[in-house]
């Protein structure tokens, strides 16, 4: 009994020691190695093209774009988009130590090289590729799928190769994680057969950005796609079966029922456009995989560019994200980036780097008061002002947890911190309400979310005055030499910016002549208010 108690105490103490070690002291400032910006020069050319295209468009409607945003705000956007969190105080100090003209480029390269970015982007792509459902028990492993996708993104494998493997892979879902793309559609009520219709819908919508599946049941009078287009695409998966050796193709024909007559007929596989790109030989799925990812299949590249843009900006360049015409006119920026993406061999990392380097990405999200009243909508439509979009729940919790730690929570962080973060994240996202697979649809917030931020435990832990270990506000109060410094540190940690004159005056007045418990209380209040702002929960 004694031994047990002692053991327990020892574990607790060592845990606290570890936690203290990773949360409390701001790590002594060590200059980080500056990651070399590969292909920097060639990227610049395409960035200039995109910038020029926007400039022409802005001139065309006679508007001045918003001024460039502050570096820290752009750094925050980059972090939220690429790792789902905000820069830590430690990151901010690092950023500010970098040469001003290259600061953001270096930060961008660092983020793209960060393993957290592969994990985060893998989840974003997974939502389009397999959705968020749990899928059939035992036959589908979503986590396995996402971590495989993250591995591929981490080594920057060409996106076309990843997608080819998703469509054509054979084998067991545990051993060959890519086949989970197929097994998630398995219908336990239909002899464990993968569902060709659902697979075709994912290929069309998640990979090509076309809503072929709207024609699943019947033709629509004004839609581009006919029911037969959809059925023929589904027919590529007609022979796909689940066997003891996992997913394999067997000879099979795709039978379709005429809903009016009830008659069935055979539907041979065919692609809905550009059939000259379809290989003549090979397994059905392998043929389809080559066609989808063919460099000349622009719909594939364009849909991927549009999705990457949405990940960076919070909304796609062309809305809705999965309903792009295959032919038609597109914003010039989309076409320039699509060309670039194809030429680069479907290089995802480069695509994200280019988008994040454009002038449009680095604009302010605000205009002058007069311009806001007169033409905010025009500016927004032309991307002449950075759009304000709601953060996804995991970005909110990522930012929340990061704002509670003065150092960066990353793969170098203590295991306990990361575990606490992972558990906290899941619980928080569950309560906050996951955005689901259509995460780029514009959405409103909920009362539950506000209550969670206003009164929930996660925020309270960061703001409690008596809690020296976990309360960041208290910690800042102890470290900052004066009131103004304390206010500045709070704003930097939560909103990634320095306070305005008005804010400094307001909050230093609140802190003036307070000490000890009362001062900590006030700091906790300031932290609470910062965490509950629109500015914190929205990308801007």
């Amino acid at each position, binding site marked *: 009994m004694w031994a047990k108690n002692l053991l327990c105490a020892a574990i607790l103490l060592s845990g606290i020691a570890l936690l203290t070690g990773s949360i409390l002291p701001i790590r002594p400032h060590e200059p980080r190695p500056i990651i070399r910006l590969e292909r920097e020069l060639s990227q610049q050319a395409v960035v200039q093209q995109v910038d020029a295209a926007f400039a022409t468009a802005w001139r065309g409607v006679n508007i001045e774009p918003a001024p460039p945003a502050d570096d820290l705000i752009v750094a925050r956007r980059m972090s939220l988009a690429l790792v789902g969190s905000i820069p830590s105080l430690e990151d901010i100090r690092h950023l500010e130590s970098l040469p001003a003209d290259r600061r953001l480029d270096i930060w961008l390269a660092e983020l793209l090289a960060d393993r957290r970015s592969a994990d985060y982007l893998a989840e974003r792509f997974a939502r389009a590729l397999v*959705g968020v459902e*749990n899928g*059939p028990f035992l036959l589908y492993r979503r986590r396995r799928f996402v971590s495989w996708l993250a591995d591929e993104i981490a080594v920057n494998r060409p996106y076309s190769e990843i997608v080819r493997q998703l469509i054509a892979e054979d084998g067991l879902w545990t051993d060959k994680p890519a086949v989970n793309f197929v097994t998630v559609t398995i219908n*336990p*009520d239909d002899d464990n057969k993968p569902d060709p219709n*659902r697979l075709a*819908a*994912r290929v069309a*919508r998640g990979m090509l950005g076309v809503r072929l*599946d709207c024609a699943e049941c019947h033709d629509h009078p004004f839609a581009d796609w006919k029911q037969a287009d959809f059925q023929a695409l589904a027919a590529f998966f007609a022979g796909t079966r689940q066997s003891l050796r996992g997913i394999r193709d067997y000879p099979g024909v795709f039978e379709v029922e005429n809903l009016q007559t009830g008659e069935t007929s055979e539907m041979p596989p065919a692609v809905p456009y550009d059939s000259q790109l379809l290989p003549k030989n090979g397994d059905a799925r392998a043929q389809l995989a080559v066609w989808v990812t063919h460099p000349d299949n622009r719909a594939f590249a364009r849909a991927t560019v549009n999705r990457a843009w949405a990940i960076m900006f919070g909304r796609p360049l062309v809305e*809705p994200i999965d309903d792009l015409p295959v032919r038609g006119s597109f914003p010039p920026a989309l076409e320039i980036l699509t060309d670039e993406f194809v030429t680069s061999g479907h290089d995802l990392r480069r695509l994200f780097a280019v988008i994040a380097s454009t002038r449009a990405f680095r604009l302010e*999200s*605000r*205009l*002058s*008061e007069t*311009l*806001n*009243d007169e033409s*905010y*909508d025009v500016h*927004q439509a032309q991307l002449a002002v950075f759009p*304000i979009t*709601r953060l996804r729940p995991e970005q909110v919790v990522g930012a929340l947890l990061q704002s509670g730690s003065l150092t960066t929570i990353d793969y170098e962080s203590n295991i306990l911190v990361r575990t606490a973060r992972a558990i906290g994240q899941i619980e928080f996202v569950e*309560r906050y*309400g996951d955005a*689901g*697979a*259509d995460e780029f*649809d*514009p*959405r*409103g*917030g*909920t*009362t*539950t979310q*506000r*209550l*969670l931020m*206003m*009164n*929930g435990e996660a925020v*309270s832990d960061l703001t*409690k005055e008596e809690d020296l270990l976990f309360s960041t506000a208290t910690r800042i109060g102890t470290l900052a030499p004066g009131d103004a410094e304390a206010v500045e540190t709070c704003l930097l940690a939560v909103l990634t910016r320095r306070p*305005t004159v*008005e*804010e400094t005056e*307001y*909050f230093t007045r609140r802190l003036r002549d307070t000490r000890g418990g009362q001062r900590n209380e006030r700091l906790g*209040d*300031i932290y*609470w*208010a910062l965490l*509950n*702002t*629109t*500015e914190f*929960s*929205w990308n801007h």
Partner: protein
Amino acid sequence: MSIDSVDRPYAWGLPAPPSRRGFLTVAAAGLLTPLATLLARRAEATDPSREPAQSLIVLWLAGGPSQLETFDPHPGRQISAETRAIETNVSGVKFAAGLPTLAQHMSSLAVIRSLQSKEGDHERGTYLVKTGYRPDPTAVHPAIGAICCHELPAAGTDIPRHISILPGEWPARGGYLGDQYDAFQTGDPAGKIADVAPQVSFPRYEQRLKDLEMLERVFARGRRTASDATMHAHQVREARQMMTSEQLEAFNIGQEPAELLAAYGDTPFGRGCLAACRLIEVGVRCVEVTLSGWDSHANNHEVHQRLNATLDPAFATLIEDLKRRGTWERTVILCGGEFGRTPRINPLGGRDHWPHGFSVALAGGPIRGGLAVGATDPQGSKAVEQPRQIGDIHATILTALGINPAKELISPAGRPLKLAEGAAIGEVLA
């Protein structure tokens, strides 16, 4: 002010939710089915009991309850696997033996025994039964409670109008109507409601809100249009209003007599049903109360015996309680799960998923009691008499609530989608 009495920034240009008067106008224009027109006329009559219902309680039996051990026994047949049946207070209608108290309220229930679906997976089946639509990547459909909140006016409620008590894995959501129509989730009413109590003293909280206002002013500078459109500040005010609302007391079942609580069965689900009854009284539109664990792949009979013992007193007392409080006429109840269970017993003594013929119970409001609709095959085949689809159940409930199920909303994909795909079951509403 309640959740959606203010503008919806992305309502896709839809007209405002129709008032009952608006509904009547549409009906008069002859756009409704004869049945709906009839109901609309009824609503115009002066007798208050003829008004359409105003609220919905969903008793969600998560996991897929067996029709054979609940509302559709086949006593003496092989598929009954020796589950006994008992008489109800309606002659000719029998329940499984596990629901003796509820059986005495059959005269208040309409049991649909011939539901068919094509979704045999929990997640997909739940989606279908809660939204009335099969999962479909072209749109995320709203749960029926969200539709009620969207379509019916929101007068005088400070607390969320869509509530899920003991939410299971997939609580009701707003789908394409927006997250603001998601059910507000809360646990066993014996405990506290999460996140409504401030963590600091009242004066300090007020000061925090003042600090917040200052920060919002700074943020809105030059971004007024966009920051107003976020509705963030509005939601903070709503949350604040809810925190201090007297209506929160509706969650507090401790105010009810101990005997009543005992009658519900002092279980989390029973307490949830009592809370639902109280919430309806203060104007909440839809309360979902979940009883989980029906997925009886092994030991089917034991699982059902245990869960029926929770469901039976809770459901029966809910009916009595609504009648006693005078809210029966304006409340519709739906009780069911994502599918039924196989007529055949598997080697583990369990029943597996069976979407081919299963039951739900409806009650309250204009629902006609004492009715059993359709029948499953006593031999256990997939054949059913008078087959019904989930969409029909949705259409029936919406009609009972004075909402036209054929009304179309434009989904974010630009497609017109009916509120419910099916047709109201006429005899249930007659």
